[in-house]
């Protein structure tokens, strides 16, 4: 069964779906021994990310590896197999009023292994950090089929090199992820979002960021409804007080603050999902907080865009090649494409210029995958 999977436009001859982690290792070992190029795929929700693989004989799908290996609510850690869907993890954690702060475009289909491989994050990164900040252990299958572990199950651990962090965002080019242990978090008693019709370049925004009475869990800028959405979470009294404080600051800066609920909140979520999953072209721009606060609204007029101004990330998509050409003109390494039309493959590098540390990255790739068979060519600088 091929299941119609293609990675950045390249369709493999074979899709293999191991039933357990032992079989995963065996399949990888056999592919490597046979000199076949392969890639790991989880929910298949981010297959346009990066460049087209140079070769792709087989896809190894992790979706049958969907067991919760260990969940310790009292210790706030969970160990899950790579193919476990984010929504399934949400459901398990909800039984104990806990959450995993991983934001993806499609929770029902995206898997934790895939989320780790692409370093998925969203607005909650402001409070919780990215997966790097709460992954504590990993089990990988190296391209040669050898199973290895890094980190562990406890929340604090400096024994050995930090393989879990190395795997975050490595796009399955060093190894396949078999399972991972993550720190989870208590679900706040109350959560409330508030929309302020302003932007990150405003004096209002600066005042919010400087105010020690405000600790939002998420800050996001939306084109519709136009403004900045701040989300607060915690005990109800604290959330109420912070919402009131935002309103006060908004009034002081001649703008308004509207608590978001029900339909309005769903519209924001739907828009965010649309930005993350739609568009012939889809990209992430990284600047920094200062950049986000000085530039104001979208620099690429016509793109559908949301921004996380506190850590300088913008997510956008568009259909129009001309828009993207303008974007590419002043690119640097700060734009990464999550999708592009087939006609642009080869012309536009999804990652831009590799960073100065690229020789180290290449050395890592060579050491982990000497035959260059594991998702070859899809990552930065042709790794």
């Amino acid at each position, binding site marked *: 069964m091929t299941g119609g999977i293609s990675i950045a436009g390249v369709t493999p001859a074979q899709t293999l779906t191991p039933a357990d982690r032992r079989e995963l290792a065996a399949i990888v070992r056999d592919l490597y021994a046979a000199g076949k190029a392969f890639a790991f795929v989880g929910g298949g929700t981010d297959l346009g990310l990066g460049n087209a693989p140079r070769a792709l004989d087989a896809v190894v799908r992790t979706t049958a590896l969907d067991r919760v*290996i260990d969940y310790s*609510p009292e210790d706030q850690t969970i160990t899950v197999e790579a193919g476990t869907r984010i929504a399934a993890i949400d459901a398990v954690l909800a039984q104990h009023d806990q959450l995993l702060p991983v934001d993806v475009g499609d929770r029902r289909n995206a898997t934790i292994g895939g989320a780790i491989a692409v370093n998925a994050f969203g607005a909650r990164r402001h409070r919780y950090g990215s997966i790097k900040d709460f992954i504590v252990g990993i089990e990988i299958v190296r391209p040669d089929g*050898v199973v*290895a572990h890094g*980190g562990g199950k406890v929340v604090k651990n*400096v024994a050995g090199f930090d393989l879990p962090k190395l795997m975050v965002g*490595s796009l399955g080019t060093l190894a396949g992820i078999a399972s991972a242990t993550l720190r989870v978090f208590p679900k706040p008693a109350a959560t409330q979002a508030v929309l302020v019709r302003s932007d990150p370049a405003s004096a209002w925004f600066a005042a919010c960021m400087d105010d020690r009475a405000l600790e939002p869990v998420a800050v996001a800028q939306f084109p519709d409804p136009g403004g900045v959405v701040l989300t607060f979470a915690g005990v109800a009294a604290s959330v109420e007080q912070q919402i009131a404080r935002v309103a006060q600051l908004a009034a002081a800066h001649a703008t308004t603050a509207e608590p978001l609920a029900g339909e309005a909140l769903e519209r924001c979520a739907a828009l965010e999902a649309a930005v993350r999953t739609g568009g012939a072209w889809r990209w992430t721009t*990284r600047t*920094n907080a200062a950049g986000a606060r000085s530039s104001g609204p979208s620099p690429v007029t016509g793109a559908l865009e949301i921004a996380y101004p506190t850590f300088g990330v913008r997510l956008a998509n568009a259909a129009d090649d001309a828009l993207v050409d303008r974007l590419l003109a002043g690119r640097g390494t700060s734009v990464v494409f999550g999708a592009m039309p087939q006609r642009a493959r080869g012309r536009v590098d999804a990652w831009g210029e590799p960073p100065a*540390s690229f020789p180290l990255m290449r050395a890592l790739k060579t050491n982990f995958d000497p035959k260059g068979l594991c998702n070859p060519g899809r990552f930065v600088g042709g790794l």
Partner: protein
Amino acid sequence: MSTVAADPLHVRFAAIAGARNVISAPSELRTYECDGLLGYRIRPRIVVLPATTEEVAACVRLAREHDLPIVPRGAGTGLSGGALPVEGGIVIGTARMNRILDVDLVNARMRVQPGVINLDISAALAPHGYYYAPDPSSQSVCTIGGNVAENSGGAHCLKYGFTVNHAVGARVVLADGSVVDIGAHGGEADVPGYDLMGVFVGSEGLLGIATEVVVRILRKPQATRTIFGTFPSTDEAGAAVSAIISSGILPAAIEMCDQLAIEAIVAATGVDWPLDAGAALLMDVDGVSVEVEHTAEAAIGLMRAAGAIEIRAPRDDAERMLMWKGRKSAFAAMGRISPNYYVQDGVIPRKDIAAVLREIAQLGRDAGLRVANVFHAGDGNLHPLVLYDERVPGEEAKAERVGGEILRVCLKYGGSVTGEHGVGRDKICYLGEQFSSDDLDTMKLVRAAFDPAGVLNPDKVFPTPRLCGDRPGVYVPHAAELSGEAGRG
């Protein structure tokens, strides 16, 4: 300053770093024979204290020319022998590189040289209302370069994370003397490619020498409340910690001291903690005021429910500082109750604190040694201190044996042999009990990418047959693990 440079290399290194910054006279090398782990001592051939990235790079290149193994060193406060020299090798110390290079409040970043002392970062930021979160107990003397090498923790890491969550970029001199920037230097969320900084932090000087570090800084919280509670024994205190963690509230720090530790701290600092308490918890709660009040009250309620004898708040900021000073000087305070002590560092799941402390106490009783405990309870990061008297024949060896058995207890509970002190030289032979040889071989692939010849900090972290015997504590995975029926940490 050396009067006579007997070593011909002295002049060569002096040409790079200046004569007064090169040490090769045996009497002066003694300072560098060990770090905070005093049990191991090796005299290096030469010590150089460069002042710039270029000087560090030149030192590395010269060392390579002469096949000298290279050991990087910060303030030398490490407790695992990570800065233990190699015989005939060079030590490159970064203590002179102690300048703050840049403070960027809008992006909440600060760029510092590696020899900047941890606490000096927060001191420099205090006028702006910012601080640097990781706070190892040695923070008034340890340097950020060493913190990066060890992925240092500290009491307030419970809420805020460890060095790896705060050190986001570095300029690094690699083993071939080349210089490279890794991680994010301009306040970006991350940079495309592998997370080199993520694996560099905590690599214990095996991957390179950081000559500049970019750290994330935090705005000071609106409110902080400190709570001190005493308990009949570590059973009740451990149960209180487990109850607090599993209830879903997140204090900034939860520290535990047992009766022996309280006794030592009282003797050393004069805090008026009750000597008859079996255990005490010291806790900070911080954040937005209303949240802090709620969290503090909830924590106090859980402490009472777990059997707290007495709960206090410091009367004023001075008393609060004294309480924390008491906690942070606890290791040194052990000198008040024992001629010698062996510091251990292991991690366990937080739900098992009370049970593990009972096992540790039993190990001590069996060996006829006292074991004090003062540790980061909220993280499950134990610091048992095995007390002994080196003048009593055999006691030191016995203490070390108890220390080793404690690590095995941590592993039995699914924990780790080190939470923040590192593997260094001290624990290399235990690493093979926590990880399989495939795990370790995979980590060595990372090392080989950075330092193919293995000249940076050799004989650290990874077990070798020479130091640990042929097959040091080989870990064999159970079939159930591979088929998905069981996991491990």
